């Protein structure tokens, strides 16, 4: 008896609290409101808070600029920033809240593939477009039956794309036949890149000598590096993020491993140079969306504006976040109405959107078609090497 | 008829002999006292009798509900063999009520399975009803029924001692081991305890072994005494003979 009463009371309390706070939120969100609401579902706390916060910094810069220029469709954009705690269930919770309570027209985020997958089902059910600028995993936008997820988009490469590109580059351009792999096995991103490299490289005729792993937040990589060194590879593929890669490259050079190091867009951060220092960063090649050293006016303008606003140089997450916001605004503009359904259609039909990180079109799988740039680090500075059109 | 036989019992901890060369036989229905100075090995002996320690060598054989020897002793099996005990430094279940404490003593007399407990099948009700009735009976005997819903930690000291005995009796033992039952009691309480022990022995048809420092209690109720010193059994016999035994006097008054 008492347990049911407890349950009952608890439920009553719950419902009243939740509906209560909902009622407040829905106040100004009628169709005729003078702002357009965009939800941000990001990792603002928890173990990947860096990526979430960096993406949001880029988004906020872009939206500031848009609002200063008069907004879109004559309305200002209002960002509703909610934290998903770096947890996929919480990301689902936030998605639902943004869609049903805050009545946003679109959701940006989350930063990682896992949390984006968590955020996906509510976005699909509530028919609100959700776009991530860094959820690189292939099945973010396509389900296991190969069917595209109607409301989900991404503006970054698929993991497989970068891995394939690097495998080709290593084999054909650098002409190196024996590779070692070292990847972050707790990161879906690194694992994705690694898998496609592992598939492509041998098919070209290369040989993978050894495959080793590390874990995010580790700081000592000498044991695996020594192991790799003993197999005498000609090149090492290290997909991962700059925090660890910086340390890995530095420690590899200390151990006397001087062979080229290859990686992906996780390398793109001014921190890489700070952590690894100049002397270690030679013969490092990575795939990226753009060259931060690009002198194109929009790149320069973005970098200056970001530095002015945030007091530090932009990294890949910042740039991708910035482009993501501009990309959505562009779609809202083309949709002609702040309506989720129309925005979704506009997003799906994006052609040659020009952003800081290059121009992109959305393909039938809701993935971007965009050029990949290969950069080489020379004395720690990224140098443009080549650009591969898709 | 003998119900406990101890043969050449030794127990050592890391080379130090705590109990050595104990031989004794205890008959059914006796009240037996174990006395000796502090550190004489009495509690160790109790722990050997209840399976908390295994003998280093020698054997202990009970002939109660069935004949068992030290090899098959496990603390939790002792009540099944008909042996229950109390502790020197009262070990009640502090945050449980008086009734619940005694129900734990009754543990092995409950006979229903996990499924029955989860779904409260009829065997659950039958068992719980019977258990509650028997335990209630016991609490009334010990004058604790009025306090059955009191948390045991809130009982006065003397009643905690009594509750511990009641809890042990709930397991329906044949042999009751009491480790310093009168410790911390005043003369009046001790007197009452003496009466109680005598009474329960008759009422429940028990054999009782007790460790005690209070000589008045020991001399009062024990029919036979065993005296320990330095882990050895130095004397045994009826209270009068023990009082006169020079070895015992020496052990108690010191070796000078």
């Amino acid at each position, binding site marked *: 008896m008492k347990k049911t009463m407890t349950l009952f009371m608890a439920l009553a309390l719950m419902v009243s609290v939740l509906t209560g706070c909902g009622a407040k939120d829905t106040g100004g969100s009628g169709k005729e409101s003078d702002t357009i609401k965009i939800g941000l579902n990001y990792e603002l706390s928890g173990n990947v808070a*860096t990526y979430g*916060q*960096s993406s949001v910094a880029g988004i906020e810069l872009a939206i500031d600029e848009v609002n200063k220029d008069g907004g879109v469709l004559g309305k200002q954009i209002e960002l509703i920033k909610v934290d998903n705690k770096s947890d996929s269930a919480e990301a689902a919770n936030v998605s639902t809240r943004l869609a049903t309570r805050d009545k946003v027209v679109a959701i940006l985020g989350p930063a990682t593939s896992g949390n984006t997958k968590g955020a996906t089902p509510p976005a699909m059910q509530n028919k609100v477009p959700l776009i991530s600028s860094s959820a690189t995993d292939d099945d973010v936008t396509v389900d296991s039956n190969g069917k595209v997820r109607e409301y989900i988009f991404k503006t970054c490469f698929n993991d497989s794309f970068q891995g394939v590109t690097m495998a080709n580059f290593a084999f054909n351009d650098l002409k190196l036949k024996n590779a070692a792999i070292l990847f972050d096995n707790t990161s879906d991103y690194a694992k994705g890149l690694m898998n496609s490299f592992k598939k492509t490289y041998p098919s070209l005729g290369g040989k993978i000598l050894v495959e*080793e*792993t590390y874990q995010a937040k580790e700081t000592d990589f000498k044991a695996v590096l*020594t192991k790799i060194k003993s197999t005498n590879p000609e090149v090492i593929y290290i997909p991962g993020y700059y925090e660890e890669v910086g340390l890995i490259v530095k420690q590899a050079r200390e151990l006397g491993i001087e062979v080229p190091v290859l990686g992906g867009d996780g390398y793109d951060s001014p921190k890489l140079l*700070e*952590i690894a*220092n100049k002397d270690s960063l030679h013969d490092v090649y990575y795939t990226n969306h753009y060259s931060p050293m690009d002198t194109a006016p929009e790149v320069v303008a973005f970098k200056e504006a970001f530095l002015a606003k945030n007091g530090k140089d932009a990294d890949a997450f910042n740039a991708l976040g910035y482009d993501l916001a501009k990309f959505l605004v562009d779609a809202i503009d083309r949709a002609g109405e702040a309506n989720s359904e129309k925005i979704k259609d506009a997003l799906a039909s994006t052609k040659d959107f020009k952003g800081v990180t290059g121009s992109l079109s959305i393909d039938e799988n809701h993935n971007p078609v965009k050029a990949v740039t290969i950069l080489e680090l020379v004395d720690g500075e990224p140098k443009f090497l080549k650009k591969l059109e898709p | 008829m003998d119900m406990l036989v101890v043969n050449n019992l030794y127990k050592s901890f890391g080379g130090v002999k705590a109990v050595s060369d104990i031989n004794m036989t205890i008959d059914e229905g006796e009240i037996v006292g174990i006395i000796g100075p502090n550190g004489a090995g009495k*509690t160790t002996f109790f722990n050997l009798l209840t399976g908390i320690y295994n003998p280093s060598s020698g054997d202990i054989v009970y002939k109660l509900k069935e004949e068992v020897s030290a090899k098959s002793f496990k603390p939790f099996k002792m009540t099944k063999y008909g042996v229950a005990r109390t502790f020197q430094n009262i070990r009640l279940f502090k945050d449980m009520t008086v009734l619940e404490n005694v129900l734990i003593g009754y543990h092995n007399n409950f006979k229903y399975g996990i499924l029955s407990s989860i779904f409260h099948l009829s065997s659950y009700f039958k068992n719980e009803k019977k258990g509650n009735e028997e335990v209630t009976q016991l609490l009334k005997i010990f004058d604790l029924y009025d306090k059955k819903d009191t948390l045991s930690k809130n009982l006065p000291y003397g009643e905690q001692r009594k509750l511990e005995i009641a809890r042990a009796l709930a397991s329906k033992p044949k042999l009751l081991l009491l480790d310093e039952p009168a410790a911390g009691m005043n003369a009046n309480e001790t007197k009452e305890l003496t009466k109680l022990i005598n009474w329960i022995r008759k009422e429940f048809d028990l054999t009782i072994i007790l460790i005690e420092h209070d000589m008045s209690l020991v001399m009062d109720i024990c029919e036979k005494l065993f005296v320990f010193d330095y882990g050895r059994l130095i004397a045994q016999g009826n209270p009068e003979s023990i009082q006169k035994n020079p070895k015992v006097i020496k052990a108690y008054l010191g070796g000078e």
Partner: protein
Amino acid sequence: MIMEEIIQQIVNGVSLGSIYALIALGYTMVYGIIKLINFAHGDIYMIGAYVGFALTTFLKLGFFPALILSMVICAILGVIIEKVAYKPIRNSTRIAALITAISVSLFLEYGMMYFFKPDTRTFPSLLPDKQIKIFNTDAVLDIKNVYIIVVTISLMLLLQYVIHRTKVGKAMRAVSLDRDAAQLMGIDINKTISNTFAIGSALAGAAGVLVGTYYNSINPLMGVVPGLKAFVAAVIGGIGIIPGAVFGGFFLGITETTISSLGGSLYKDAVAFAILILVLLLKPNGFLGKDVKEKV
């Protein structure tokens, strides 16, 4: 070539182990005296690194002044944490104590994240960047590692001296054995526990600065994994035993390196935890601990 790899891996193991050992020292000491798993220890280590970072980057202090100052600041922080957080729960249950320690740990991690952003920061290079070649092979040892090992061993000896030879240390041991009795003997319990925390936290602070310069990258969550590993190391060596922590640190470092070098880097941490469980089961008082039986 094979020989060289083995030598290099031994060097790697020792150098990793020295870091675990350094952090484990403070962990084991606090546990030894007040029987509290101070989950916040790893975070004090993180704060030590940030203090070192601030002192060297903004005040341009050298290595040793930064190390000493950071130890002092961490000691003060440790005492504050003890007074504010642990003192009120000193007589609570173990579970309350453990959750309080977790809450302090979260508070420090996310407080730092709030004030200083979650970004990784780079520690200025304070010590000479030099590699020593061993036995004329290609195996190398980072000179900074020599510093860490020397500091770890000296701190261990110093701690042993403090605990066994000084009045403060004797008071600590007395409190650890029987708090009530110690109090009856006129030992100031509060002061002794404060001392314990001050010393333990100072050790964490030292570790923070040393490891900061060694890896030159710090972030607010940097204390979590090393903290956990250091705890494992402390348990392996026998928690509460100072030389045990150092032994456990090296043991864990060398074990992890061995597993990685045998190609098991995927399961390196799993093996570390499996060893932890095995040690707890087979030798609950650690390799250097004595077995004690519960009194009935």
